[in-house]
């Protein structure tokens, strides 16, 4: 069902010039920061812990717990991850353009709660308008006294820097992002020892939070952690933006209450996805970005709930739901996703760098009619070498999870649509072409 929970992070969408300070202040902007400054860091952290806000970037780790793990040595830094690149995820792109002040306010609340010496908002380089809006908003926020020296006369001071990326999916991975922010190639770091909360930016304790995650903070401070926890159920609290794409009539970002709405609601409800285009049949959907294992129509009635989706062997991930109708060639879909990971591999680890390319080539030859029956076992064997056991969450043979994410689409497609692979191989081409 669709609940009547009011939107939290997208409340200002549609407000004229929502990205300006004037519009922001007229709609309650910076009140959360003002209140936080009077509460003190510990009380703010306690509210966020109570809210059980799960990170909205992909991994879904509790924001409050992340803050509590920040190591003691100072200085500590705050980095906001706006490097949204997971295929078919486009919510942060929207927030950066539509409500930059909300991100800045959330960043400042986080910096205050964690005692960060400086904050960096890392924005995906391709988001030119987002970078312009964020920069203009930051200029306004400085002039307004919300950033910099002695914020609102509270005695608390912190600077914020908007940092543009330069195009690399892997920099969404937090340790690769930190390398990039240090002016280097985006190579993920080994954990341990490089857990950002202990050894992050410049080897100092660092919090890395997602754009949508911190956009929730002004609301949580103003309305309390309990109020946030009152939305959703279990561990999946609050509302969340889901990026719906693919073969639906109304692909868009929808902010909805966690858990209570099902995938069927999201895809078919007239107020949300509006159903499959041309009244076609649903063939499969991906519940949480290109890295996530696929679901079939039998899983439509599952709630948009982090735990439920996890128990069913996939993940809500970045909150992107991709819908494929019966006209979709699943070999082609799996190949395209695999080619993406192959291209975006940073190249540090052999299983990902070489395995990704090998899988890309095999899927391409099946799709174009040169496949052999032994290719199915070969695909699974290579996948097993990248992510032993082919379980979810995956086992790793690599520094980061990019490589172990490659098997998701391949094992899903073979498990659900094995016959389709065999038809490609027997008929020497794609039956959908």
């Amino acid at each position, binding site marked *: 069902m669709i609940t009547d929970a009011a*939107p939290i992070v997208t409340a200002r*969408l549609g407000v004229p010039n929502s*990205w300006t300070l004037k519009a922001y202040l007229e709609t309650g902007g910076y009140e959360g920061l003002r209140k936080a400054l009077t509460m003190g860091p510990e009380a703010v952290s306690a509210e966020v812990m109570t809210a059980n806000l799960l990170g909205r970037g992909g991994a879904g780790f509790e924001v409050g717990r992340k803050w509590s793990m920040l190591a003691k040595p100072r200085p500590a830094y705050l980095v906001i991850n706006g490097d949204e*690149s*997971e*295929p*078919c*995820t*486009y919510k*942060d792109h*929207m927030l950066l353009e*539509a409500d930059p002040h909300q991100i800045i306010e959330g960043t400042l609340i986080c910096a205050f709660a964690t005692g960060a010496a*400086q904050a960096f908002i890392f924005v*995906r*380089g*391709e*988001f*030119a*308008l987002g*970078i*312009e809006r964020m*920069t*203009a908003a930051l*200029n306004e926020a*400085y002039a307004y006294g919300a950033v*910099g*020296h002695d914020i609102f006369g509270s005695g608390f*001071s*912190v*600077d914020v*820097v908007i*940092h*543009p*990326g*330069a*195009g690399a*999916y892997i920099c969404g991975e937090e340790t690769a992002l930190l390398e990039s*922010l*240090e*002016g*280097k*190639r*985006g190579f993920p770091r080994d954990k341990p020892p490089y857990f950002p909360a202990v050894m992050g930016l*410049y080897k100092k304790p660092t919090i890395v939070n997602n754009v949508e995650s911190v956009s929730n903070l002004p609301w949580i401070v103003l309305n309390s952690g309990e109020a946030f926890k009152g939305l959703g159920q279990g561990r999946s609290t609050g509302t969340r933006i889901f990026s*719906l*794409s*693919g*073969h639906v009539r109304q*692909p*868009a*970002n929808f902010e909805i209450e966690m858990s209570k709405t099902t995938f069927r609601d999201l895809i078919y409800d007239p107020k949300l996805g509006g159903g499959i285009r041309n009244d076609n049949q649903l063939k499969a959907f991906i519940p949480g970005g*290109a890295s996530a294992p696929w679901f079939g129509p039998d899983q439509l009635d599952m709630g948009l709930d982090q735990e439920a989706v996890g128990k069913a062997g996939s993940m809500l991930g970045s909150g992107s739901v*991709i819908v*494929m109708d019966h006209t*979709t060639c699943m070999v082609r*879909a799996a190949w*395209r996703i695999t080619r*993406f990971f192959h*291209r975006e591999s*940073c190249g540090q680890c052999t299983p990902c760098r070489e395995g990704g390319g090998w899988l890309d080539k095999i899927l391409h030859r099946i799709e174009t009619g040169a496949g052999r029956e032994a290719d199915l076992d070969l695909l699974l064997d290579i996948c097993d070498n990248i992510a032993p056991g082919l379980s979810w969450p995956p086992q790793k043979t690599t520094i980061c999870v990019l490589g172990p994410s490659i098997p998701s689409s391949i094992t899903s497609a073979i498990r659900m649509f094995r016959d389709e692979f065999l038809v490609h191989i027997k008929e020497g081409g794609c039956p959908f072409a």
Partner: protein
Amino acid sequence: MPRLTPDNVRRCKDLIGLYPQSRSALIPMLHVAQEQDGWLTPEAMEHVGEMLGITPAEVYGTASFYDMLFTTPVGRHLVSVCTNLACLLNGGVELLEHAEASLGIAAGATTDDGEFTLEEVECIAFCGAAPCLAVNWRFFGSVTADAFDNLVDDLRTGRLADEVPPHGTLCRVRRNVGLTAGGPPPATTTTPAPAPATGSAEKRDGA
């Protein structure tokens, strides 16, 4: 080939001043260099390295990792067509094929007049309006073949010059304040801000 202009040297110094360690300014400085010349010339990369106290090879080593940074010349308009999953499902591949035929070049190539470079890109996070593309990272959604041809025409004739600046110009709004947390305002920097961005009001594909 040019090194950085005096104005861009000042911009780069301001950028260096924003970070606890200077090398963090490298990528933002490379965006400045790319804005100046449309791509990263060896001379500009060397100049950036001098300012940061790192070698040209270190600059190139970082630059070559990133898709947006070009170490060879590109056209005035970089046309980036997405074919990742949401676009694949909605005609992105056919759009790319149309773009190749229309511009008369394969993806990865530049037209003879230097106006257009065409590239196939991974998801550019505009999936509510698939199939989509970007020109110099200004986004266009639900692009049909006819819309593509009209877009190319508008770009050629300069009708979209306000919305789509030349390749390399990422952000037309400049930060107008340095770091202030450590001391009382007003801050001491920085370069004068140009006219604010027009903020093209493209179709919102949100909730």
